[in-house]
């Protein structure tokens, strides 16, 4: 008497491509239109009010400067991104590792969490002068800053993620008399992945910001992006400063999207990843 039920909420496919295109447009068109309109307004504003180029350059001028110097800028961007990347790896890696270890002991993690959250409130950037004293002007000093910046968010999200396994699921594992390590690997760790990825995504932006701002306060002028941006700004060469900023943005966004892609590949099953509406 096996009954095959028609599932009530299977993902609906089979809408016409026209209606799906229409829905897609409705969703993304406003955002797509805003960017060029914003740029056009900016351009018009600069021209109409004859704003001096050194105060607020028009997008066209920035584009021009960018076109002239983009190769050099990309080199600088890459140099700075390497600092962000290594700091990210070290900071997030350590944060997750220690998070895994610490959450094993519930009492320690309960005591540690408030402290970690509080330390996260400390302006890490205040350390950059000291880090420069210790590590000099080169890449290692920025890597250290980025690592420190990334450590706590990852620690916090890992500990949080490892605690969300549904109590019923834990009880189920108990009913199978499952050894603790296996419960960890089969249940707690997969449940924690969405939270860990949250932390990882947050840290992508932190890493780029940390590298660039760390360089404001001490970097090699001939190689790094942050020092370039600050220097050009102080020389009132805003056009090239903005070009530098655009490159920094590009790296930051690309990094974020990269991690987002990994997330899609590694946890396709999670609600936030599989639902098309975000």
């Amino acid at each position, binding site marked *: 008497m096996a009954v095959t039920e028609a599932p009530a909420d299977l993902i609906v496919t089979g809408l016409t491509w026209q209606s799906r295109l229409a829905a897609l447009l409705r969703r993304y068109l406003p955002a797509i239109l805003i960017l060029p309109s914003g740029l056009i307004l900016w351009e018009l504003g600069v021209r109409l009010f004859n704003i001096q180029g050194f105060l607020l350059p028009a997008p066209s001028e920035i584009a021009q400067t960018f076109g002239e110097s983009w190769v050099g800028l990309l080199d600088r961007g890459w140099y700075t991104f390497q600092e962000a990347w290594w700091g990210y790896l070290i900071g997030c890696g350590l944060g997750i590792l220690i998070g895994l270890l610490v959450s094993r002991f519930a009492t320690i993690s309960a005591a540690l969490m408030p402290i970690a959250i509080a330390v996260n409130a400390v302006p890490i950037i205040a350390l950059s002068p000291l880090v420069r004293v210790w590590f000099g002007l080169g890449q290692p000093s920025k890597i250290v800053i980025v690592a420190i910046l990334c450590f706590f968010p990852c620690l916090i999200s890992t500990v949080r993620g490892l605690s969300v396994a549904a109590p019923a*699921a834990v009880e189920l594992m108990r009913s199978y008399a499952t050894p603790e390590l296996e419960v960890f690997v089969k249940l707690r760790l997969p449940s924690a992945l969405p939270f860990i990825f949250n932390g990882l995504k947050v840290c992508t932006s932190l890493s780029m910001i940390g590298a660039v701002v760390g360089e404001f306060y001490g970097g090699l002028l001939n190689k790094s992006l942050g020092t370039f941006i600050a220097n050009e700004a102080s020389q009132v060469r805003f056009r090239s400063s903005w070009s530098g900023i655009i490159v920094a943005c590009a790296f930051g966004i690309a990094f974020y999207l990269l991690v987002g892609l990994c997330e899609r590949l590694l946890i396709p099953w999670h*609600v936030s990843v599989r639902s098309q509406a975000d």
Partner: protein
Amino acid sequence: MTDTAPIVSIQNVSKLFGSASAAGQTHALSRVSLDVAPGEFVSLLGPSGCGKSTLLRLVADLIEPSDGQILIRNKSPRQARLDREYGIVFQSPVLYDWRDVLHNVELPLEVMRFPPAERDRRAREMLQLVGLKDFERHYPWQLSGGMQQRVSIARALSFKPAILLMDEPFGALDEMTRERMNAELLNIWSQTDTTVIFVTHSIAEAVFLSSRVVVMTPRPGRIEKIVTIDLPQPRNLETREQPHYFELITAVREGLREV
């Protein structure tokens, strides 16, 4: 141990929750005794707070009694759990979103170290039993509530335990699905020879499914009355229309009213 010895024996069990201060404690269960024979289908029925879920969890060794003793196949609940004597189904299916249906059913088999080929065979067999053979590769979120619960049942039976514990498994489903699931559960039960302890707050469900209905009342949680259900097997739609069915429902309802 003879065939007529109870497979689960609950003896004078009490359970108190809360701190030891005078106002603090809740008497979830007070001196409850019950014997369940092998192969029986026993329902624990009662309003909220009567201790039926608590009793089930005591049998499952998920909590410990404050007083009294429970024997499962002459073992303590802890030993029974370590020996994997029972499978449990909760009200929520508790499936892993990151595993497909087949691998969800294989979960206990993995923990119990069955070899891969055996795991696969058993899981498929169970899915066939609950009527979800075509959904092995689906993921839990692609299934309706009733189907998810069926996967949960398949998982609970995959390692062929002697006892099946069910805590309001169909409580989250609508009436029609619930009645269908009841029929399916009886079908599965008749094919697997398992002892079932089933918690519910639906009188109709309890009467339809069980060989005995244990009526419990709260404050403190205790057994008020046990009604033997002598409806013939196999039970189906027609059973729900028989006069004796309604008589039994009335008998059970009266048990609930006597407080």
